[in-house]
């Protein structure tokens, strides 16, 4: 029960990594667990969860991210690691890592002390099949394989404000196919709260549905 939970959320650009990472952190927090959420997006550091750091902090999560004005003067080259990021896995509690997109993003784990040896670390790939680069089974397999060893897939298929049941179900079907081919489990099908009425407790492939709140729409500077 009190086993440490350490999870890294990775995936294609705009696949929903941050939303899923934030929601996971909130879920653990609501179970009374101590949670640290770490913004490790060094690929595109200007469009991350920095702007909502305070809001999440008020909910009881320890957010490790640069704050507005903290990294001034660095412009777009301001992708630097805080000491708290490097040592994110040290100390107790659960850790949720929000990683920059693609294989380059994932390389940040090389900079985190103890990540390579950590037996609790799970890497989850977030997939939205409405993203054309990860729309087909073959493309997703190629993409997931490029990331190295991963522990699970999350079907996060949606069309933003035009999300319908069809895209969620098709995502479930395609991601489940990938799961079968790669032998990597589907952890969940994530659905934004606004579209919760479109789904039940499980998707048609039998994967659990996870209802998530959206935060990143407020994350623009």
């Amino acid at each position: 029960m009190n086993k440490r939970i350490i999870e890294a959320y990775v995936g294609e650009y705009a696949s929903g990594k941050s939303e899923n990472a934030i929601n996971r952190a909130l879920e653990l927090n609501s179970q009374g667990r101590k949670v640290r959420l770490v913004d490790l997006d060094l690929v595109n550091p200007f469009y991350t969860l920095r702007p909502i750091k305070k809001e999440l902090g008020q909910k009881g999560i320890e957010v490790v991210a640069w704050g507005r004005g903290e990294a001034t003067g660095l412009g777009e080259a301001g992708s630097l690691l805080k000491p708290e990021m490097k040592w994110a896995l040290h100390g107790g509690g659960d850790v949720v890592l929000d990683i920059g997109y693609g294989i380059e993003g994932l390389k940040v784990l090389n900079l985190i002390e103890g990540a390579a040896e950590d037996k609790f670390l799970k890497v989850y790939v977030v997939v939205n099949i409405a993203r054309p680069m990860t729309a087909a089974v073959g493309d997703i397999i190629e993409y997931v394989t490029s990331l190295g060893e991963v522990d699970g897939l999350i079907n996060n298929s949606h069309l933003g404000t035009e999300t319908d049941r069809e895209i969620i179900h098709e995502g479930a079907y395609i991601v489940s196919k990938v799961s079968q081919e790669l032998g990597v489990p589907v952890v969940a099908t994530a659905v934004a709260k606004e579209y919760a009425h479109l789904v039940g407790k499980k998707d048609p492939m039998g994967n659990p549905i996870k209802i998530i709140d959206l935060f990143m729409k407020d994350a623009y500077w």
Partner: protein
Amino acid sequence: MEQKPIQGEKKVFMTGNETVAWAALAAKADIMYGYPITPQNEIMHYWTRLAPKHNRKFLQTEDEISAGFTTVGGVLSGKRAFTATSGPGNVLMQDSLSMAEMMRIPIVMVVTQRGGPSTATVIYSQQETTLTCFGGNGEGIRVVYSTASHQELFDYTIKAFNTAWKYRFPTFVLGDGYQSQMREPLKIYDPDEKGIEFVPAVAQLGVEGEAGVDRDPIHLRNTYNMEDELYEVVRGLVDDFKAVAPEIEEYREQDVDDCEILVVAHGIVSRAVEGAVQQLRREGIKAGSFRPITLRPFPEKHLRRNAEKARKMLIVESAEGQLRRLAADAIYGCQTPMEGLFRPGESITVEEVVQAVKGLL
């Protein structure tokens, strides 16, 4: 046969930069020349991921000066070439774009406006309006489409390739950092299936045959000895541009028939303005909006028609009066008072526009 990048039509969820890369692919672009700059980067990133799968090319140059000129070179050699940049990169590319203007080279360039002046922010602005319309030591002989959504980024990037090659003027898709990074649903499609026919890209240099014998000699110039010689050339450019302007001009109107306050905005700001007009109308306030989609050529007559009917005008932009100057020039002589809501480098919300309009009542 090579598989088409997009089969039929499909609904997708993308960022704006990614949308541009897919649109260029769908528009049969052969090569992108580029140099990295935020917030444009993912146009390059996605192009470089997609290009090898579809037998297209990419060249990263040593800077934007080179990216602009290699695009010119690519076009001269018969390639459907394009580039994309932002802010200081847009400044550096103006030299090559002036050359394209002078030599009627059909360049397509996508601009993702960032904050200025200088390096400023990587985030967002509408401060490259003047630069994109009139940059370089020329007369602004260019077509500039200012987009407001991902669907438009897709549609107008495709259209830009045909506008450029049909009229042989440099053609710009003017986006911004918000449109680049934002995610929203859109429909992507195969232009062939929509009946969009592409003007072929033909080599102007290195063509076969002996000059003067098999074909006319090719004489591409951007240097002239005599001032009257130059005058004749520039006069020709200006006249050609003016002649086709009415068929290139595009705009969008909302609730203009009985409107008292006419709100003018372009690009993504027009989304806030259109939202504000809807809200104001619900409250019984007679507001309307006018959005130039082409900033060059500017839909002058259409703005004037609406401006003359209105009691007051409000120009809204994320710049300090760059759109206002275009509008004021377009309707010169019109007596309708013109106010401004100017936020250089900062976003503008529906609520702020509503408030500004109410302040004019």
